[in-house]
């Protein structure tokens, strides 16, 4: 790829914002991204928006300017933000637009996600029986992974503590207070072995990017960040994924593994080339598993890597430098775009007190969600 540049990134803070609507947050994020790009809404020739809670995102044009552009709605659950980036990049590659916007916004009620299982082709009894609970899947997956690969609960606590610590350095994070490993382990067990403070929470927020034909990026910025690869994969037969009543005996790997391989192949680089990493940390265990599923280590190596601080901001493989989902929460439509916003700041050297040292050149983002959909985006400056 490399034919598409990100010229602007905007982030509405994540958290709780009273009566402020998802649309108002989304409009703020687009305005921030446009200002960052030095562009106007009238420069934008198409847009892709994603959200769980609003019926459609294109009414945003009523707040940004009724310019008549094509504005498509994209939804892939937790992979929604990554899907908006891929679609915006592809629209530019296809010649449909020189400048495109990707935007995500959400405003979730408190508590875990609620929905009618039949709306995702899961039988009603599964929900009535108390099994339509995403967190339980994550508990089951990490419990088996810890058993198979020698990962301790202390390592899960280290992951969560690191993300809260990074969140404390991020003025736009939801959780901005460091939490000790002891307090994380002592918080109530939600789904063994995962405790409350090891999980992210649904919340509110918005994020947006302005993308542009790479050869035109110089008109807007001296610091373009190029989209090197995007890849989205659904589950293969044999994968055991979230919100499924069954799995095949012949195990296959998670869709993350396929998306990661495809993205690295397209970008023509490997995990060793990546300088800053964003992984889906729905819970601390997910971050541990995703380190291996994305090729950054072998299964089981996380125990030592975390003990050595390898994933800290100043470590050799910095992960979730803005606090990830654990410190930012998950407004679903915006979450994947928040990851990219952070990578853009890091690659430009503008991440302030959470800046990764050594001028990272390549950034990597992965999202994963129901019903087993993963996306990977690779950026480079």
């Amino acid at each position, binding site marked *: 790829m490399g034919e598409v540049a990100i010229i602007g990134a905007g982030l509405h803070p994540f958290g709780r914002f009273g009566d402020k609507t998802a649309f108002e947050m989304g409009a703020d994020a687009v305005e921030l991204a446009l200002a960052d790009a030095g562009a106007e809404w009238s420069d934008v020739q198409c847009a892709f928006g994603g959200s769980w809670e609003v019926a459609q995102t294109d009414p945003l044009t009523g707040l940004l300017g009724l310019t008549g552009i094509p504005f498509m709605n994209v939804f892939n659950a937790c992979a929604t933000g990554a899907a908006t980036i891929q679609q915006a990049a592809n629209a530019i590659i296809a010649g449909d637009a020189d400048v495109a916007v990707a935007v995500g916004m959400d405003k979730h009620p408190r508590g875990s996600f*609620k929905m009618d299982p039949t709306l995702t082709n899961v039988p009603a009894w599964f929900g009535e029986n108390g099994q339509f609970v995403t967190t339980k899947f994550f508990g089951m997956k990490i419990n088996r992974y810890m058993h198979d690969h020698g990962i301790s609960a202390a390592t899960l606590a280290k992951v969560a503590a690191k993300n809260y610590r990074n969140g404390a350095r991020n003025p736009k994070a939801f959780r901005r207070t460091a939490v000790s490993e002891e307090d994380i382990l002592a918080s109530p067990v939600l789904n063994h072995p995962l405790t409350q403070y090891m999980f992210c929470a649904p919340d509110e927020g918005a994020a947006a990017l302005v993308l542009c034909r790479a050869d035109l990026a110089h008109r807007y910025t001296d610091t373009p960040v190029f989209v090197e690869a995007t890849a989205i994969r659904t589950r293969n037969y044999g994968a055991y994924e979230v919100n499924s009543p069954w799995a095949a005996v012949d195990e296959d790997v998670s869709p993350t593994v396929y998306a990661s391989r495809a993205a690295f192949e397209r970008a023509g680089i490997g995990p060793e080339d990546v300088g800053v990493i964003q992984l889906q940390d729905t819970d601390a265990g997910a971050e541990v598993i995703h380190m291996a599923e994305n090729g950054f280590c072998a299964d089981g190596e996380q125990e030592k890597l975390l003990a050595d601080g390898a994933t800290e901001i100043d470590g050799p493989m910095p992960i979730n430098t803005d606090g990830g989902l654990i410190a930012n929460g998950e407004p679903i439509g915006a979450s994947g775009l928040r990851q990219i916003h952070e990578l853009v700041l890091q690659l430009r050297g503008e991440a302030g007190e959470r800046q990764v040292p050594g001028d990272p050149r390549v950034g990597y983002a992965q999202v994963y969600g129901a019903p087993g959909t993963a996306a990977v985006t690779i950026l480079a400056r």
Partner: protein
Amino acid sequence: MQKALGDVFTWPADEPQLKGGRCRDCEAVTFPRQSRCPRCGHASMEEHLLPRRGTLVSWTTQGFPPVLPYAGDPTGASFEPFGVGLVQLGDQVRVESKLTESDPDVLAFGMTVELTVVPFYVDDEGDEIMTFEFAPVGDDRRS
């Protein structure tokens, strides 16, 4: 009277079984039965009763009341944490199920479990809704 949750296990029965589906073309097994095969895509699934015993591939606990459409008490007032497992039934299929056991010190990878049908809740018409769970058996059963 007693009623079964969904239509996914044989009931009433002395030895209840889960109602799975099996593809006539590629032999893939699913739970519950579905109209089309998730492996080959053919509309060739027939009902296939699943083995009653299996082994625990993984497990966790549900430590908080599930949100709606949970049919148990979602207020949490009478909620008791329960175990959840991924159970492999022979070499056929793995099913996700509630477990009768929720103690992490008792639950173990590879333990033998067996299908059981238990009372779940009483509906608005006064009927007792029954659900399925897997219970540790034999040497794996602890008091």
